[in-house]
């Protein structure tokens, strides 16, 4: 049981490049999330999904896209990378119980130069 996995761990992009951050979970969780954490700040919600085929925006969705074709995978796509997207990105998942905790992946540290 690997929990939530994320790849890559680190990435440097040039302005205008695109990339996909991968996230997978093996706990059969319906809910999945993408957060970003900027230095000295809390985690902010980018996108979330309540099940395969269903996604919606969080608080900071601009510049990102997601898809959820399977229960296990929830990739985050960055189009036309900008320096403001330099951050640490965390993927998380949770079950459907009332107060189920969220389980987080190890994060992807992205730098846009």
């Amino acid at each position, binding site marked *: 049981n690997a929990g939530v996995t994320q790849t890559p761990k680190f990435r440097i992009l040039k302005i205008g490049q695109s990339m996909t951050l991968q996230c997978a979970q093996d706990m059969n969780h319906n809910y999945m999330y993408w957060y970003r954490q900027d230095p000295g700040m809390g*985690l902010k919600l980018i996108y979330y999904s309540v099940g395969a085929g269903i996604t919606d925006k969080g608080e900071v969705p601009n510049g990102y896209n997601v898809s959820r074709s399977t229960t296990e995978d929830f990739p985050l796509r960055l189009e036309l990378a900008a320096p403001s997207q330099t951050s640490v990105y965390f993927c998380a998942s949770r079950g459907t119980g009332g107060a189920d905790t969220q389980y987080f992946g190890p994060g992807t540290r992205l730098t846009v130069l």
Partner: protein
Amino acid sequence: DQQVKQNSPSLSVQEGRISILNCDYTNSMFDYFLWYKKYPAEGPTFLISISSIKDKNEDGRFTVFLNKSAKHLSLHIVPSQPGDSAVYFCAGGKDTGRRALTFGSGTRLQVQP
């Protein structure tokens, strides 16, 4: 609008003493609160939670207190150990809808041997 606030960016305590981490919130609609612990280069890991209808929850060395009238919660760690040195995030969550978490900005705890 910061719905969850951690006003102390850092805290230093001696090994064996009590650590008290504080958190304030403005959204009365949270159904529960959680504390997450984060080590460098890792994702946040769940520590302890409390339902909004409770005022205390205890798990070993960790106790969370909730004061609804003051919209304040605190995490007590007794006794503090060097391995507790990490960043602690407070978060509020709801039982309905997207069930995402709203995080505070974190408090870095340093436990001195």
